[in-house]
């Protein structure tokens, strides 16, 4: 039997699949539901300083090539999540708290407050492509900002820190290096691509309530694989490969690019909430057919020796 278990920055994972931020993740129950369905860890929907209602619907639209989302960071705000995320010991798997801010000050507040919550790790999002005032739209995807915010969060919260990066920048490798040097424990690569837009030609209006949305699913996968491949060459901290992983073969591909763990998001739409179990089963089958006994044996296999 192939062994799918691993350790990620001290977190014990039964398999490499992690529920990516933004899919489900609204409440403790929405995450334990993913855990029951095979997710080895789960990430909350991103939490901001203030309460946010998010964008009007449709917030997710699917087309032949993938999915566009424009959730708009709906969340109750960091001061109101203790009730939801204060006691996660019995969640069944590690819960990663995703934090999103507009600037260094926001992230300082979020980090201090998240330190008191029950998250086993923190992920900071510097890379949302579609929400004004946040992520790439706030200019957070520069090496300087990445380093500064990583440091600020790391100083205030001692939990393992994952930095989620955008595929929509030149010099992604520089961002990953900046995060590593500033104290990041892992890189989550990548956030959604784009942003993109789909226009309904009868009403002549963009379909998404937020007009523009981050691209995920099939269309994102080759971009995500390339990003993970490049980052793996440049940093020594683990990478959570995220973007368009829908089946076990995609999972193997991402691991061969250099990923230690895998973020799973859009696949919940394509294959149901039990997609975590399905991907693990398929990955295991692939490993057995290839005579691979552990994930470490496969990790980064696509790179030249």
């Amino acid at each position: 039997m192939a062994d799918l278990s691993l350790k990620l920055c001290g977190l014990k994972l039964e398999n490499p699949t992690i529920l990516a931020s933004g899919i489900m993740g609204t409440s403790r129950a929405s995450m334990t539901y993913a855990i029951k369905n095979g997710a080895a860890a789960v990430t909350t929907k991103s939490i901001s300083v203030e309460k946010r209602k998010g964008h009007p619907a449709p917030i997710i639209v699917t087309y032949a090539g993938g999915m566009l989302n424009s959730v708009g960071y709906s969340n109750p705000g960091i001061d109101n999540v203790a009730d939801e995320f204060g006691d996660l010991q019995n969640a069944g798997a590690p819960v990663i708290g995703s934090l999103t801010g507009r600037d260094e000050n926001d992230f300082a507040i979020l980090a201090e407050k998240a330190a008191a919550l029950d998250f086993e790790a923190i992920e900071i999002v510097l890379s949302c492509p579609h929400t004004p005032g946040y992520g790439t739209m706030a200019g957070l995807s520069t090496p300087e900002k990445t380093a500064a915010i990583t440091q600020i969060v790391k100083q205030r919260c001692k939990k393992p820190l994952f930095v989620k990066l955008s595929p929509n920048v030149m010099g992604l490798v520089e961002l990953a290096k900046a995060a590593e040097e500033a104290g990041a424990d892992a890189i989550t690569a990548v956030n959604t691509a784009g942003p993109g837009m789909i226009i309904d030609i009868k009403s002549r209006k963009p379909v998404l309530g937020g007009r523009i949305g981050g691209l995920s699913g099939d269309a994102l996968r080759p971009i995500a694989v390339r990003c993970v491949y490049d980052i793996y060459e440049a940093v020594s901290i683990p990478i959570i490969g995220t973007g368009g992983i829908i089946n076990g073969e995609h999972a193997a591909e991402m691991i061969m690019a250099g990923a230690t763990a895998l973020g799973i998001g859009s696949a919940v739409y394509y294959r149901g909430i039990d997609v975590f179990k399905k991907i693990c089963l398929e990955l295991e089958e692939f490993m057995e057919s290839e005579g691979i006994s552990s994930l470490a044996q496969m990790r980064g296999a696509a790179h030249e020796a």
Partner: protein
Amino acid sequence: MKHELPKMLKIERVIREAEGVHTLFLPYAGEVKAGQFVMLWVPGVDAKPAGISYHQDGCIGVTISAVGAWSKEVCGKKSGDLLGLLGPYGNSFELIGENVVLVGGGYGAATLMLLAEEACRRSLKTTLILGARSEAALLYRTRIKAMKLDAIFTTDDGSFGEKGFVTDILQRKLQSEKVDGVYVCGPEIMEKRCAEICLAAEVPSQISLERHMKCGFGVCGACCIDHSGRRVCVEGTIFSGADLLQTHEFGRYRRDSSATKQPFA
């Protein structure tokens, strides 16, 4: 890859059901199951779920009460105007046995109408208990009159039918005869009371649950219920009453668009 963009459909006709309540008919050739919903998109405004209240002549009907920005926009639409449709989504009611009771409160009547028609088509002994604030707010009275079922109306103010609550009628009904299944849609406090009455009488109940929904197809997590995490838009909207009574939030609170808990009054 599976995908679905909103279908922009020309409204075939609009009928007035009550003050501020309209049914819009949209062409739809596919299958519809009783209890399912659609997401209705008003371009540039919002998309929200709506129960399917009619399925006839190649159309589905959705009954909307004009209360907020989105519903006022929908209710302002005329025949020939365009409306975006996603779905139908969700599971459906399953009729069990020979003697069934449908209980609707307020706009909950909309979600029960296809089930009432199905029960009549199958020649089941069918009782429909509908309650509303007043006579003016009672929906589908003419339509129900044409159905082969026993209809009992209640109003809070006694302006039509019995003065009182549908739950009292349901309790009497379950005490007086053997009922095989109870089907409920209405305000959540009423739904919870119905579930309790059915559980005590050992009659299975199926309840349509309403939650804030954003995507409608199980991805956004807005409608996950505590503590099971089940998604109302995919594993629901119809749940067994006995199951719902086990859930933490049924009749207690729901989450708003920021996922903040809002208690029921």
